[in-house]
């Protein structure tokens, strides 16, 4: 099941936490990721969203796409609000004020809400050891406000605040490794996932939510609007990100690294770039520079796997 490489609709749980009628763009993989995560986590959940695309598209008053209890307070504090929900439920159950039962707490935020403005709140929540699952759906820029760069935007990508200019060719910094930052908190469960691998994603959400203590899943979410890619290519792009080694899928369970998908040979990064307008300006030299870095980072990950005995 874990390694299932094909999508079989009949094997997917029927329940929908994140229901129909939301207003996400066509081909939005972030909405898909959240829908799949909702199926995996089940009905007994309190969801906390940060400000961002998913909050905006799912709750235009008086409508809501959420079939489970859901709260949004602000941009940078999903992890802190989730900490409060978890602590409140814990206290109320202990004091016998509500019946004892497992209620999962799920925090959801984008890459800006996680690795930029929310990094303090998430670090605090992970360090304090709250029993919750934090899912970052990373579409690699501030898409909700109009495709501005974040610390999760990859090197070279053109965004509205890192445009491919005549002197500076797009984003000048390497993507912040948020999963590694989460793992550095020594929490019991960290994983990367992508809705192009739906069963892998659901399995990880199930594991993460059921692991006692904090869990973090970093999900690559293709954004056709921001990446300037065709809306029907979201699944293929997600797979290419994994197959090129640009976004490797792995788990860190109690400190042990384990690659979830490890192709015998990585595809050239160009296969991934070719389908996206945000990388259209990249020169051969720039692509080579990225290729080298990807190979190095991938090797580092495999070394971590060997060193921690997670193989």
């Amino acid at each position: 099941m874990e390694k299932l490489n094909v999508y079989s609709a009949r094997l997917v749980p029927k329940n929908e936490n994140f229901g129909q009628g939301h207003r996400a763009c066509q081909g939005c993989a972030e909405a898909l990721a959240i829908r799949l995560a909702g199926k995996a986590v089940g009905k007994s959940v309190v969801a906390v969203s940060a400000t961002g695309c998913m909050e905006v598209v799912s709750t235009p008053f008086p409508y809501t796409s959420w079939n489970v209890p859901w709260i949004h307070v602000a941009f940078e504090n999903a992890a802190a609000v989730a900490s409060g929900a978890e602590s409140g439920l814990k206290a109320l159950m202990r004091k016998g004020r509500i019946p004892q039962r497992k209620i999962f707490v799920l925090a959801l935020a984008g890459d800006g809400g996680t690795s930029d403005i929310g990094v303090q709140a998430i670090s605090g929540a992970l360090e304090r050891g709250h029993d919750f699952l934090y899912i970052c759906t990373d579409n690699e820029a501030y898409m909700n406000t109009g495709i501005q760069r974040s610390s999760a935007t990859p090197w070279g990508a053109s965004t509205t605040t890192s445009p491919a200019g005549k002197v500076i060719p797009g984003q000048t910094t390497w993507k912040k490794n948020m999963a590694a930052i989460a793992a550095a908190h020594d929490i019991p469960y960290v994983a990367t996932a992508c809705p192009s691998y739906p069963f892998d994603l659901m399995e990880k959400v199930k594991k993460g939510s059921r692991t006692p203590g904090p869990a973090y899943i970093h999900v690559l979410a293709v954004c056709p609007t921001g990446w300037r890619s065709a809306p029907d290519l979201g699944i293929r792009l997600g797979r290419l990100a994994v197959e090129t080694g640009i976004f490797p899928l792995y788990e860190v369970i109690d400190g042990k690294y384990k690659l979830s998908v490890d192709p015998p040979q990585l595809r050239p990064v160009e296969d991934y770039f070719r389908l996206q307008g945000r990388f259209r300006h990249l020169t051969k030299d720039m692509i080579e520079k990225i290729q080298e870095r990807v190979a190095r980072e991938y090797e580092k990950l495999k070394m971590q796997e060997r060193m921690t005995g997670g193989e």
Partner: protein
Amino acid sequence: MGKRVGMEVSIAASEAVRLANVDVIAAYPITPQTHIVEHLSEFVNNGELDAEFVPVESEHSAMSVCSGSQAVGARSFTCTSSQGLILMSEIVYCTAAMRLPVIMVLANRSLSNPISIWNDHTDVMSIRDCGWIQYFAENGQDVFDHVLISYRVGEDRDVMLPVIVNMDGFSVSHVIEPVELVDQETVDKFLPPYKPDIVLDPAHPVTMGAIVLPSCYTEAKKAQDEAVKASMPTILKGWQEFGDLTGRYYHPIEEYRTEGAEVLLVTMGGIGETAMWAVDQMREKGRPVGLLKMRLWRPFPFEEFRKAASKARMLVVVDRAISYGGPGGPVASELRSALYNEPKRPLVANFIAGLASRDVAPFDFIEMVDRAEGACKKGMEPEYEIYGVRE
């Protein structure tokens, strides 16, 4: 009746939080609020209070945690000061708009820069329009009582609003005072368990904090304004019921020796007790001076204030904050506008004093009254003045 004991006011505040049997406490240390959180964590770690103590990494997260815990139906508490308050202020606004009755004790302290750990009201005035019910305590007894009253009022299903109990940093928070405690049985009679109608519960899913388009935003804000105004009867009822149980009755505006007073000093917070001395001294000399102490800042007690101020010739308002380049102190400017449409209204003189705990002694109040009277005799409309500037 309750026991009368000598204790530090911060500890009295913590005692009240324990008696209120809160479920979640989230706070970040900042001078001069620290003694409250220290004492509360002792309660929790010694098993004297069954609550989750969440030692957050910032005040912003303190208020965020309280929002989350309150939303699942847990009684929540935080306390802060100064920079901590303005760091959390983004979420302070959210909590009120989401109708989550979190209770916060504010040990009022100046805002930077220059950094100052001492007391004035510049911190709370920065969030004047946050939509919380706001009390000002004068002494330890006020603080202790108002923590309990806040939970009773804020959680009332007719109110559902968060409440701030303001107390002056150091000059109230760190002072050892006689405080009459209330026993658990009486507290339980006064304060029922928190049972909100709407919580985050998988059995009854709700969406909280949705996005609202311009077509509904104005209505949401109108509803919020009405909610704050409509809390007044419950606030009055809360004081009445608390008084009936403890013998201590409170009012939106506390009057001191106002009978026949032509001039009224107006204060808010701890300096009110010093002003009482000054009024006594002036009364001894036959001067018709009285004192109004503002206990309730939001909702603003228009009716009570107009009634209390109507017979005076002049108000001498002592503010503890300043609106730079604006109308002077925030209290005076609100009092002025409250009086503007009155057919007969007193003159309003405004002194900004006691910034960063600069001492305001009885003779200072007398001096302020003298100066205001002097200006008045010369036919000058009194303006605001930053009092006691060394030149």
